[in-house]
């Protein structure tokens, strides 16, 4: 009797574990399918964007003009500054050029998808303002995903190429040897920087749910320009603000320092932690704001 019951218990245990593993594999495949679906969506969005670009070919040249102007003013600004002084708080023309490269790279990545997507949401005549956002909400996809990846601007790849050129030139002039450790630190720093940039933009866009008329992203764009120069060049109080409150300084200064090798590991870890904290905070803010959305009507 006892043996019987034990047997049946073991059987049921086995069955349960089998069921469990079946369920596990089922949900695993669901998650996989789900992420595949999102990747496929991103592919679609990019294809649409390319088709759009091909329809307006003149825009290519205009875009190129803007990219070159942006690059030219940035580089010449540094040349003028370092024509007067040799070094500035430890920064030379070469290392500041590398930092400008990081700034332009982040800007190009932003222009590629984060910027256009969030601008369509919260910018001038954005979806929240016009009420078009209703249709975004109705789609069977995660809203934050759609708000962040929906719109692409392939012409930003031009900016990316030029930016990487500036970065390369700066590094070549620095004459630093690139150890794998430095490259790794640089990639981690860049990723953290991009995540912070995304988080801040998401948070500023989310504020639009509270005050639909105000262009919060424009406010941020103004502040972002301070990241063209190393944080160390600003006076003490501003340095604190740009490191901890609106960490635009962290986004460019840390990857640039990682390249030249004078970045303590603790700073890098701190940047990653800061990026994760900002990302979590911005996501919470976005989802809270979402609940306030009440469409628009005339």
């Amino acid at each position, binding site marked *: 009797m006892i043996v019987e019951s034990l047997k049946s218990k073991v059987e049921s245990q086995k069955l349960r574990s089998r069921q469990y593993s079946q369920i596990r594999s089922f949900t695993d495949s669901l998650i996989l399918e789900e992420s595949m679906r999102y990747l496929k969506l991103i592919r679609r969005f990019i294809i649409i964007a390319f088709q759009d670009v091909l329809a307006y070919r003149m*825009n290519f040249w205009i875009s190129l003009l803007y990219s070159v*102007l942006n690059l030219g003013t940035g580089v010449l600004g540094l040349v003028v*500054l370092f024509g007067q002084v040799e070094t*500035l*708080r430890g920064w030379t023309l070469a290392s500041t050029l590398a930092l400008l490269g990081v700034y332009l790279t982040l800007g190009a990545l932003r222009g590629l998808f984060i910027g256009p997507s969030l601008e369509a949401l919260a910018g001038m005549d954005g979806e929240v303002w016009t009420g078009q956002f209703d249709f975004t909400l109705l789609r069977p996809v995660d809203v934050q995903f759609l708000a962040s990846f929906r719109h692409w601007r392939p012409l930003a790849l031009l900016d990316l190429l030029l930016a990487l050129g500036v970065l390369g030139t700066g590094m070549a002039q620095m004459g630093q040897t690139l150890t794998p450790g430095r490259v790794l630190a640089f990639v981690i720093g860049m990723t953290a920087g991009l995540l912070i940039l995304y988080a801040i933009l998401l948070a500023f866009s989310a504020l639009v749910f509270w005050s639909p008329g105000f*262009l919060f992203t424009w*406010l941020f764009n103004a502040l972002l320009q301070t990241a063209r120069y190393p944080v160390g060049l600003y006076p003490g109080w501003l340095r604190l603000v740009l490191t901890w409150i609106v960490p635009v300084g962290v986004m460019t200064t840390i990857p640039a320092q990682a390249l030249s090798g004078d970045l303590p590991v603790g700073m890098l870890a701190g940047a990653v932690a800061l990026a994760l904290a900002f990302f979590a905070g911005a996501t919470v803010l976005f989802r809270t704001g979402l609940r306030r959305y009440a469409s628009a009507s005339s």
Partner: protein
Amino acid sequence: MMQEARGKGQEAGGKGQEAGGKGQDLRITDHASRGTLPQVNLRGGLALMRKTWLSWVQHRSFFFLLAFGWMIPPLIYLFVWSTAAGGGTVGGFSRGQFVAYYLVLIAVNQLTYSQNNWTVGDVIRYGGMNALLLRPLSPVFDTLSSEVAGKVVYMLFIVPVTAALALWLRPELHVTLHNGLAFVPALALAWALRFFWGYWLALLAFWATRADALLSLQDALIFLLAGQVAPTALLPGALRVAATWLPFRYMVGFPVEVLTGQLDISGILTGFAFQLGWLAVALALFGVMWRTGVKRYSAVGG
């Protein structure tokens, strides 16, 4: 709110389309086709200015935001050059002199900047010009009235902010009577030059749809050559020569240099000569563009 703020001509554009839709005869008033300025219709002009002023004040938070954005680049260079000067001098400038230079530049840049140059192109492209041409006033008065209203609204932001920055960053500024007196016409000419130079560029919209790219080019050149990135005296060789001969320095940097006492009498007089010369060129180009452009203009809308 923002849609209206984007261009003063938008509601006018709506009206123009209405007129076209009803199939009314869009007769272009005589002065416009001849391209001469009419006698100013005083009552109409005042009403126009009042309307424009009210619309600007209503959207002030938007314009404060714009002013904040335009203030940041000079402010960055203020900090960077201050750090470079430290306790000593760079290129003959001390920290306090850099602060003074850039605070004056923030105000002058805002006073001479004409954002209307950007909206003129839109008014032409979207057909808003129809309604403007029907008025018994040259369209340039529409732009001028929003120019005046805009300056007042921007100053409501810029003056307190620069004053607060001045109290805090301790600029070194000794204004002599000569410099102060020379500053006023230098500023007025700088505004006129920047306004008409931008306006003739914007009128290229009569021929090309993406003419506003040239306005971006102009902004970039102003950034480099008009004293934003550095006072003209600190620019390296070729850039300084370009700054001296091209019109851009005389739109922003020159009045600032006059007020902060960087120029002697001959420098000031040469600067005035350049300003007047380039202003004449800008006015001539504006006249030609306007006359040939309006003839070519065909309305969009309906």
